[in-house]
């Protein structure tokens, strides 16, 4: 009894801690123009590569742009893109996964064959290939990520729907003449929603890593937009003389990914969702 209580408490602490970091980051996203001391894109070659000062709390980069401001605006880009990618992916996956799982039959068969082929590719590589073929840029980054990710989640959601479908209360609903779409919306969605939420938070960290990785290679978010991965790419040439340029964006990525991973893990344990 005491032990489970302790576990709960630790979980709660972890949830609070990671939640607080996510909250702070969200505030940065919303209030970026207010909080940032400078415009993140103003180039001032005369003040390039400066050490931290009152005016530039974290110094300036190779074009004299304020690093702190770029980090703050970068939060917006990184989190915004990640949430957009994951959100759209999830909506598509819920729709297709539920349809395939609930209806079964030929559509389901077709869906599973598409899964076989798309999941035969490693997802990071397929995203790279797609974005390379479509051409670099934020829109293509978004398209490539969604096109690659949706199969994976749709298949998981299909599995969830399949297991819920066999429950007695669904049978009861069917027998009492509830129409199919109504059963899905009223009786199946509420059950799988918590599991989907856990999936969302467990994997969003990975999405942030992929987006910043592709932007680092110059394929995702394009300069001069402030994005953490692209900032690391920018500072590559100066990392012998000014290693701090590279430290800040990396630390930001690490912090936010850790926060989301911790949040997702504890959320999963708290809701007792099993991962297959």
């Amino acid at each position, binding site marked *: 009894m005491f032990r489970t209580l302790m576990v709960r408490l630790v979980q709660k602490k972890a949830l609070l801690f990671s939640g607080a970091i996510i909250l702070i980051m969200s505030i940065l996203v919303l209030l970026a123009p207010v909080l940032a001391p400078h415009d993140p894109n103003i180039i001032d070659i005369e003040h390039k590569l400066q050490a931290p000062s009152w005016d530039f709390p974290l110094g300036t980069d190779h074009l004299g742009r304020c690093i702190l401001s770029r980090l703050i605006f970068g939060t917006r880009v990184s989190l915004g893109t990640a949430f957009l990618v994951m959100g759209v992916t999830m909506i598509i996956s819920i729709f297709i996964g539920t349809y395939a799982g609930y209806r079964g039959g030929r559509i389901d068969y077709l869906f599973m064959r598409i899964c076989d082929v798309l999941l035969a590719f490693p997802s990071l590589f397929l995203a790279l290939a797609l974005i390379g073929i*479509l051409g670099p840029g934020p829109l293509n980054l978004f398209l490539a990520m969604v096109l690659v990710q949706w199969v994976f989640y749709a298949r998981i959601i299909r599995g969830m729907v399949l297991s819920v479908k066999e429950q007695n209360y669904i049978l009861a609903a069917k027998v009492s003449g509830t129409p199919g779409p109504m059963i899905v919306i009223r009786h199946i969605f509420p059950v799988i929603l918590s599991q989907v939420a856990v999936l969302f938070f467990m994997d969003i960290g990975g999405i942030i890593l992929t987006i910043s990785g592709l932007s680092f*290679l110059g394929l995702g978010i394009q300069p001069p937009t402030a994005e953490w991965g692209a900032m690391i790419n920018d500072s590559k040439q100066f*990392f012998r003389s000014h290693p701090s340029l590279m430290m800040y964006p990396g630390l930001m990525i690490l912090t936010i990914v850790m926060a989301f991973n911790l949040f997702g893990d504890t959320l999963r344990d708290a809701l007792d969702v099993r991962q297959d």
Partner: protein
Amino acid sequence: MIWFIVKRLSMLIPILFGISLLTFLLIRLAPGDPAEAYLRLSHIPPTNQAIQEMNVKLGLDKPLIVQYVDWLGKVVRLDFGNSYVSKQPVWDELMLYFPATLQLTITAVILTVCISVPIGIFSALYKDSMFDHLSRILSFVGASMPTFWLGFLFMYFFSIKLDLLPVVGRGSLAHLVLPSLTLAFAYISTYTRLLRTSMLENLHQPFVFYARVRGLQERVIIGRHVLKMALLPVVTAFGMTIGNMLTGAFIVESIFAWPGLGRFFVSALSHRDYPVVQSCILLMGGIFVVCNLLVDIGYGLLDPRIRWKGER
């Protein structure tokens, strides 16, 4: 066992077919015209007439289905066409870059096994000890680490500050240390966690209790019985990991200027060198599928229940 392998192999055929179809269609998504890309890369002005002649020469004027069958027929004979950039056969180029990536991956796999297995076992055996807490925190951080940043951190501390290892490139064994460690880092974290959890689950199984009752030595119980069971999920995940490492090495390769397939692929993408792009995707898909197949078979060897399941 032979039937099990034959069955798995026959499942491979439709998937490989699907991969080839997807690869072929993917290239058609590209904006712009392959003939134009070819002409630009050959420094020939892309006039309308030149483009049309090129289309005929590359067989792009035929219907899509004929193009696909032609292409597939050649691919089966390992003829991937010639690179638009170097004009060399693509297959030769792939084989030039592939060993470097393979070397990197194999080293990373060895590192992952040698580091994560002992740590995972000790973490589970001495649960809630100082060592366990430390390894859990480290593996948690490791799993959240951006690879490209980690690569630069390693480079900064080991090559520039301490001057112990070469910065970039391929050559001696010392060149291999940082890239492979960077590639392995996230996987070491994942596997340490996975093995710890799986060990803990198996440590409380009845068969462990029974082995203790039989008076077996603790070392034998852990080494022979618990570890064997605990390794099952690890082996399953490993097939994916080897495939992911081989195909995901492009970030590490581009940081450390490692002359591997991933870097070659990224540069082919930026040049719009379609035959190379197509062949790389096909090759990577093929490798990934074969890795998963090998794991399936390995799994069947480890756990008889799986290979018997379908036979009755």
